[in-house]
């Protein structure tokens, strides 16, 4: 029993990551009916921004004196890093293709995915290149600037695995003999807070209303005076920011990040979005937690290496039994 509850908590932690990433997939699918294949990489960029910020904060000693504040700053940095990446990707790689075939958009998304992975990997190379720009004998940047650029880019990215400073620790509270680490509590709380915020935004604000309108019918929404492009940008901003939050938390929890880290969580989060009903926001949350739990429970019965297969088997069974997902509806109702 004790073990079961521990595993449930583990499943909810993993599920929090999946749910946060799945929200981005589902929102983009809601407004554009496209699978944002680069979403996993946007998530990865968030993790890198968080890592960069937290390393810098650790240099000035903030992670020692006030770890909570450091984590909040890192989360915000990761969220904005991802969100801005998301907006740029939408503007440059997806918007020109909005009327092209779905497959063209898909290829563009795959290209974006490769580009982002390589960009993060090559940041230090670009950094030393920029720092060494010179005209004749004169350098473009003074010596101190050059070192700063090289240092910063080296801290940010690179082909090697980056390590988060372990500020969360392994302590936790004990409830009835079960240890729940603070890190898990933090992850679950942050995820729930962001999901409630998102739900309020979509249901209660004017932007949310516009997003729902665009997801229901883009042309009619445009005729009603909604700036469709702006709403799509906003959707990418919000979805990517959530992925960024997930990225930073995953970094804090698992400590290691690398340029290709986005692929597996990305695919699993997509599974979660489909299980919950793609285009449906509560569905993505439900699907994320469900997938996390199923994965953790399956590990109890199967060798751990089959963990990744389980997600896909669930996906395939779900699609065969109820392709629209648990909460999805194929009717004309709003998808968000």
């Amino acid at each position, binding site marked *: 029993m004790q073990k079961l509850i521990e595993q449930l908590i583990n499943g909810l932690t993993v599920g929090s990551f999946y749910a946060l990433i799945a929200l981005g997939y589902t929102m983009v699918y809601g407004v554009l009916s496209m699978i944002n294949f680069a979403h996993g990489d946007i998530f990865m960029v968030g993790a890198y921004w968080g890592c960069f910020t937290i390393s810098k904060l650790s240099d000035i000693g903030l992670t020692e004196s006030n770890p909570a504040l450091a984590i909040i700053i890192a989360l915000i940095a990761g969220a904005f890093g991802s969100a801005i990446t998301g907006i740029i990707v939408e503007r440059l790689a997806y918007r020109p293709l909005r009327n092209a075939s779905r497959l063209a958009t898909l290829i563009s998304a*795959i290209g974006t995915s490769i580009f982002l992975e390589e960009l993060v990997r090559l940041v230090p190379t670009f950094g030393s290149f920029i720092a060494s720009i010179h005209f004749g004998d004169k350098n473009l940047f003074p010596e101190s600037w050059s070192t700063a650029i090289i240092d910063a880019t080296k801290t940010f990215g690179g082909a090697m695995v980056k390590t988060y400073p372990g500020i969360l620790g392994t302590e936790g509270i004990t409830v009835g003999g079960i240890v729940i680490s603070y890190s898990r509590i933090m992850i679950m709380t942050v995820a729930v807070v962001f999901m409630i915020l998102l739900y309020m935004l979509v249901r209660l604000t004017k932007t949310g209303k516009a997003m729902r309108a665009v997801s229901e019918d883009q042309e009619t929404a445009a005729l009603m005076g909604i700036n469709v492009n702006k709403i799509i940008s906003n959707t990418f901003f919000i979805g990517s920011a959530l992925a960024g939050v997930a990225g930073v938390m995953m970094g804090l929890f698992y400590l290691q990040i690398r340029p290709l880290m986005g692929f597996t969580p990305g695919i699993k989060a997509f599974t979660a979005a489909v299980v919950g009903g793609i285009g449906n926001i509560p569905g993505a949350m439900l699907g994320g937690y469900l997938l996390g739990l199923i994965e953790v429970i399956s590990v109890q019965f199967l060798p751990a290496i089959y963990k990744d297969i389980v997600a896909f088997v669930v996906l395939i069974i779900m699609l065969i039994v109820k392709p629209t997902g648990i909460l999805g509806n194929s009717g004309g109702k709003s998808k968000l």
Partner: protein
Amino acid sequence: MKNKAMILEKLDRSILRKILPALISIVILSIPLFTFPQKNLWVRIIGYAGLYIILGLGLLVHVGLAGMFDLGFAAFYAIGAYSYAFLASPHFDIHIPFLIAILIAGGLAALVGVLICIPVLKLRGDYLGIVTLGFGEIVRMLLMNLSDFTNGSQGIMQIDKPNIFGFVFKESVYFYYLIFGLVAILLFLLNRIINSRTGRAWLAMREDEDVAQMSGIDVSKYKLLAFAIGAFIGGLGGAIFSSWQGSIFPDNFNMNVSINILCIVILGGLGNQYGVILGAMALIALPDILRGLSDYRMIIFGLLLIIMMILKPQGFLPRKAPQYEKKALPDKGKEVQS
């Protein structure tokens, strides 16, 4: 005046249709005959691109012709490769002749294709893509984890070289001709299929599944047929790959392979069998051409994919409407005029 333009247009088309393919085949076939620096490397690279043409033609049947979005094509490639490896290597100590083994490999891939197609017949578009993506990953992970049977991540070694009537394919040059020979046969057969009743049924299905069904096309049957044929071609490609490499590992068949093949089909022009050739050459040879840029080549490759799609979302060679549609229109116009 009008006649002259028409003749010019016809001439233009006949040049494009007949001379260009002939020219391309001559160039491809004669490359290994010349000597130039790093010849072996280039023969390998172009031969490898040829292998991807085969795979691209297989996926073309799924995505381009039948309109079934497939993101897990590497699964069939893997099944073909492993079947051949089981049948012709010291792993189980079975050594079946190449021509029989390669057909069995293709057949097994086709069988699996049909088996996974049956439960997902109703799925469309992105959903089908995701199921096949999941299927591709499942196959790879099973190959990785069923260690007793597949030797896990250690892979299978010392796979037999093809031996056709006593002639042993030992060098890459022979594989080069083997691969392009198969490409030629496949192109011929695909052309026949595209212009047959089956091809027209696929076309109708691709344009609108419901309308096709209502016009009396047995959609399920043609879907299964498309999946079987595509998977068969993928299996052939896999068998050639494993006999060429001599050793195979589960990671040879990861999702990037599926995505690469899909990129080839789409870049070349969706539904155009000749576009696949162009797409494969561009996609497989490009990273090697860009090798001079060493570290930057993948980032440039990603960027080129995006730029290409923005400038030419239809691909290099968009699929043209079939001839019979074109002929019907001017005749009608004449009748109205007279």
